[in-house]
C-alpha cells in the first residue's frame, strides 16, 4: 500500500513538473501574437546571479518591481529557468496581452505581488487558483505552479451620439455587449428631454430663454457624463470577465493550444532562445485598435468580423543568442496554396549582376532588393480584395469591390510596369567623406572692432549610389532630361553633360555638392559619386568581393552594414565626451550587421546576424553588458554635470 502511495505521489510530482515546463499548451490557437522566452536564457546564457549584478537592473528593473536591492531575482518566486510565454488574443470584446510564467515558490511570488500592489487589494480564491484585480485593465491569477498576468482592453465602447440620435423612444438605453459572462442588460440612464424647438416659437432671446438653454445644457452634459460612466462600467465588467475566462482556462487546462497549429509548428523552432510568431494580417489591425481603445464601436467596423476564411500569412522570428553573434531566422508562410504561390511569385526574381558592379569593397553598407514587379502587382489585387471586402463600411459592398478591382486589373498593365521597373534595386553607401564647408565667423582687432571672415570646417558628406534596372530606357531618359526644360523657372543648377546629368548645389551649402543622374544599358543611376558615373561611361566596375556577389545573387534581399566603419565615420562629428565614450565602446564591441532573405523550403526565409567582438560569453550577455556600459557612461556624465549645477 505504501509503495502504491509513493508511486502515485511520484506520478503526481512528475506530472506537475512536466506540466510546469510546457506552458505552450496554455497558449490558445486563436492567439495572434506569441512570444517565447526560453528558460535557457536565464539558466545558461545570462544566469540570474549575473543579472542581479547589473547596475541598471538593480537601479531600474528592481525599482519597477518594487523589490529591494538585497533581494535576488532568484527569490521572487518566478521560475526563470523555464520557458515564459506571452500572447495576444481577442477574447469576446476585449483584446488581451497575456503572460504565462512558471512559479517555483508561491509564497515569494505572493510577497512580490503584495510589495507591488499593497495588502489592500483583495485576493479572490477561485476553484483552482487565486485571482487578483490589480487595476481595471490588469489581472493576475496563480496557483502553486504557474501564474497568468492579463492586461486587457475593451474594444467595443459605444458612441453616445450614435445611440442618442438612433433612439426613437423617450428613454436612453445602454446595451452591454454579449459575452460568455454576461447577458444583454438594458439600463435606463435618463428620460430624454422633449424637443424644445417644437414648443417654443423663435422669438427674441429673453432671460427665461437663456435660463432654459442653461438648464438644457446642464442636463445634456449630465447625460453625456452618465453615458461615459456607464461605458466605463461596461468596459470594467467586460475586462474583468475576459481576464477571468482566460485565467480559468489556463488553470483548468481547457485550451486548444496553438502548439497543434500547422502554421505555428512549421515556422517556430522549439530550440530557439526566443521566438516571435504572428498572424501578420490581423496583428496590425489589432495593434492599431489597442491604441484606439477609446474609439467607439470598433468591433462592428474593423477586421474582427473577418468573413474571409482563406489562410493568410503567418510570420516568425527565431532568435539564437550565439557565442559571437545574434542570429535571427525569419520565416513567412501561408497554409493556403494560392496565397503561398502569390508570395513565392513575388520572390521569383534574381538581381541584375550589372548592378552589383557599384558595390565598392570598403563600403559602409549596401541594400539589394530583387522582386518580381509583375507578381507583386498581381498579389496586390488579391490583397486589396481580401482587405477591402472585410474592412469597415466596404464589407456591405464586397461584390462591388471585387468587380472594381477586377476592372483595375484589366486597366493596369502589370507587364508594362514590370518593364519599366522589373524589381531590381540597389543602394550603396560608398563612404562618408569629410567635405570642407565654409562659414562666417568674426575676428576682432585689439580694440574689439569686428571683422567678418570666412572660415572652413570639415563636415561629413554621404557618398552614395542608388541604381535600378529598367527595360524602358527611352522613357527613363526622358524623365532625367525633363528638368533641363525648367532650369530657369525652377532656379536650380541642372546640366546635361557627356552622357549624364548633374544637379549641382551651391558650394558648402548642402551636405552633398552634386547629384548625378544617368541612364545606360538598362540601368538608372542616381549618385553623388563622379567616379561611379565615369565607371559607367567606361564600362568598368568596382572589385566587389565574391561573398557579397554570392549573397546578392542568391538572395532576393541582401543587406550589409559595416558597423565599425559607420561608427568610425560618425564619431568624427561627436563633440561631447559622453558621445565619444559611447562610440568608443560600440567601436570596440559591435560587429557587422548582415541580412539575407530568399525562398527556401517553399517559404520566404531570411537570416539576420549581428556580430560582436569583445569579452562576452554570448550575444544575450553582450546586450546586457552594452546596456550596463552605456548606462554607466550616461550616469557618470550626469553626475559630473550635476556637480557643476549645484
Amino acid at each position, binding site marked *: 500500500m505504501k509503495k502504491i502511495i509513493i508511486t502515485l505521489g511520484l506520478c503526481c510530482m512528475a506530472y506537475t513538473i512536466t506540466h510546469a515546463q510546457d506552458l505552450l499548451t496554455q497558449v490558445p490557437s486563436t492567439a495572434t501574437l506569441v512570444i517565447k522566452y526560453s528558460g535557457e536564457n536565464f539558466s545558461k546564457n545570462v544566469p540570474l546571479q549575473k543579472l542581479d549584478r547589473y547596475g541598471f537592473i538593480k537601479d531600474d528593473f528592481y525599482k519597477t518591481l518594487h523589490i529591494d536591492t538585497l533581494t535576488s531575482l532568484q527569490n521572487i518566486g518566478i521560475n526563470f529557468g523555464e520557458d515564459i510565454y506571452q500572447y495576444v488574443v481577442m477574447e469576446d470584446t476585449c483584446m488581451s496581452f497575456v503572460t504565462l510564467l512558471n512559479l517555483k515558490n508561491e509564497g515569494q511570488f505572493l510577497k512580490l505581488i503584495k510589495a507591488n500592489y499593497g495588502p489592500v487589494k483583495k485576493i479572490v480564491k477561485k476553484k483552482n487558483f487565486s485571482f487578483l484585480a490589480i487595476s481595471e485593465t490588469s489581472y493576475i491569477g496563480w496557483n502553486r505552479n504557474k501564474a497568468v498576468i492579463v492586461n486587457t482592453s475593451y474594444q467595443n465602447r459605444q458612441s453616445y451620439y450614435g445611440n442618442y440620435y438612433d433612439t426613437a423612444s423617450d428613454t436612453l438605453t445602454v446595451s452591454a455587449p454579449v459575452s460568455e459572462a454576461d447577458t444583454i442588460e438594458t439600463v435606463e440612464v435618463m428620460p430624454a428631454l422633449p424637443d424644445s424647438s417644437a414648443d417654443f416659437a423663435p422669438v427674441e432671446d429673453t432671460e427665461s430663454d437663456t435660463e432654459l438653454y442653461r438648464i438644457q445644457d446642464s442636463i445634456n452634459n449630465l447625460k453625456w457624463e452618465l453615458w461615459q460612466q456607464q461605458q466605463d462600467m461596461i468596459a470594467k465588467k467586460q475586462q474583468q470577465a475576459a481576464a477571468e475566462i482566460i485565467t480559468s482556462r489556463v488553470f483548468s487546462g481547457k485550451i486548444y493550444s496553438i502548439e497543434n497549429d500547422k502554421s505555428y509548428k512549421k515556422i517556430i523552432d522549439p530550440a530557439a532562445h526566443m521566438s516571435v510568431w504572428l498572424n501578420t494580417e490581423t496583428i496590425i489591425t489589432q495593434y492599431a485598435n489597442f491604441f484606439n481603445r477609446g474609439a467607439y464601436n470598433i468591433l462592428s467596423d474593423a477586421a474582427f468580423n473577418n468573413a474571409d476564411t482563406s489562410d493568410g500569412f503567418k510570420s516568425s522570428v527565431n532568435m539564437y543568442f550565439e557565442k559571437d553573434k545574434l542570429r535571427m531566422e525569419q520565416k513567412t508562410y501561408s497554409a493556403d496554396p494560392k496565397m503561398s504561390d502569390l508570395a513565392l511569385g513575388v520572390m521569383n526574381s534574381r538581381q541584375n549582376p550589372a548592378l552589383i558592379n557599384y558595390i565598392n569593397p570598403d563600403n559602409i553598407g549596401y541594400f539589394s532588393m530583387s522582386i518580381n514587379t509583375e507578381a507583386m502587382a498581381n498579389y496586390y489585387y488579391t490583397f486589396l480584395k481580401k482587405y477591402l471586402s472585410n474592412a469597415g463600411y466596404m464589407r456591405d459592398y464586397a461584390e462591388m469591390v471585387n468587380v472594381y478591382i477586377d476592372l483595375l486589373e484589366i486597366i493596369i498593365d502589370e507587364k508594362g510596369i514590370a518593364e519599366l521597373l522589373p524589381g531590381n534595386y540597389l543602394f550603396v553607401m560608398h563612404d562618408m567623406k569629410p567635405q570642407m564647408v565654409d*562659414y*562666417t*565667423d568674426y575676428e576682432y582687432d585689439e*580694440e574689439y572692432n569686428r571683422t567678418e571672415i570666412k572660415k572652413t570646417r570639415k563636415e561629413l558628406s554621404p557618398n552614395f549610389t542608388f541604381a535600378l534596372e529598367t527595360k524602358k530606357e527611352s522613357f527613363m531618359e526622358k524623365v532625367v532630361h525633363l528638368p533641363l526644360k525648367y532650369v530657369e523657372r525652377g532656379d536650380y543648377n541642372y546640366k546635361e553633360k557627356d552622357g549624364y546629368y548633374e544637379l549641382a548645389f551651391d558650394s558648402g551649402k548642402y551636405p552633398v555638392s552634386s547629384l548625378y543622374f544617368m541612364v545606360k544599358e538598362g540601368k538608372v543611376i542616381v549618385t553623388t559619386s563622379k567616379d561611379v558615373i565615369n565607371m559607367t561611361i567606361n564600362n568598368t566596375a568596382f572589385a566587389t568581393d565574391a561573398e557579397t556577389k554570392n549573397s546578392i545573387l542568391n538572395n532576393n534581399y541582401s543587406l550589409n552594414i559595416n558597423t565599425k566603419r559607420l561608427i568610425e565615420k560618425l564619431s568624427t562629428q561627436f*563633440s561631447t565626451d559622453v558621445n565619444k565614450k559611447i562610440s568608443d565602446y560600440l567601436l570596440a564591441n559591435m560587429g557587422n550587421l548582415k541580412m539575407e532573405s530568399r525562398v527556401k523550403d517553399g517559404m520566404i526565409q531570411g537570416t539576420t546576424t549581428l556580430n560582436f567582438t569583445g569579452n562576452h560569453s554570448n550575444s544575450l550577455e553582450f546586450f546586457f553588458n552594452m546596456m550596463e556600459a552605456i548606462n554607466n557612461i550616461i550616469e557618470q556624465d550626469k553626475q559630473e*554635470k550635476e556637480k557643476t549645477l549645484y
Partner: protein
Amino acid sequence: MKTTAYLVLFSCLILFQSCFEIIETVFLKKDGSGNFQMVLNLSKSKTRLNSIIKMKTINGHEVPSQWEIKNKIAEIEKTVTKTTGLSNVKTTVDFDNYIASISCNFTRVSQLNDAVKNIYTKENSKEKAPEKIYEYNAAGNTFSRLNLFSFKDEYKKLSNADKEVFATANYTSIFKFESNVTTASNKDTKIPPSKKAVMLKLNTLDIITEKKSIENKITLTN
C-alpha cells in the same frame, strides 16, 4: 506661433548638434546715448539648417519656415521701433549664412530695457518681464550689464540631446565707450590697451549652469 521669439529660432538649434554664437555690442557715449546691436550667427550649422528648413517637423519640434522666421523678426522690429526713444531700428536675416541681427540707436540706456521688456511682454503676456538688463549711472560713471534671466531650471528639463547644443555655443559681449574703462567687475573681462572697450566671451553652457556670469559692472573715468 505664440512661442517666444527665442524659441522659434532656438528650436532650430536644439534639433541638431550645432554651433552658434550670440554677439551683443553696445557703444555708449558720455551723454548716455549710443548704439546697440545683437547678432545671432548660426553659420557653422548652415548645411544642416539648409536640409532641416525644408522639413515640417523634426524630433517632434516644429520647424519654422523662412517666411515664419522673417515674420517673427519683423514683429520684433516693429515692437522695438514703437519703443520711445529708439531710432534707426534695423533687422537683417541672411538665409545663405543663417545670420540674423538687430540694431538701433538710443538716447538713454533705459530705452533698451523698455524694448526688451516690450518684446518679453508680447511673447510672455502672463509672466513678469525683467525690469533692467542695462544700467548707466552717469554720475557714478558706471555701466552695468545685469542678468535677471535664469535658464537653469528649463535647462534641467531638456533631454540630453537638446542639452548638447549648448556645449559648443558661445556668447560674446562687447561694450565700447568714449571714456576710459577703469575696472570691470567680471573677472573674465578683457580690456584693450586703449581702455575704451571691454570684451567678455563665454560658453553658453557655463552661463546657463551659472558657472560663469554675463553680469558686469564697468567703471569709467570722468
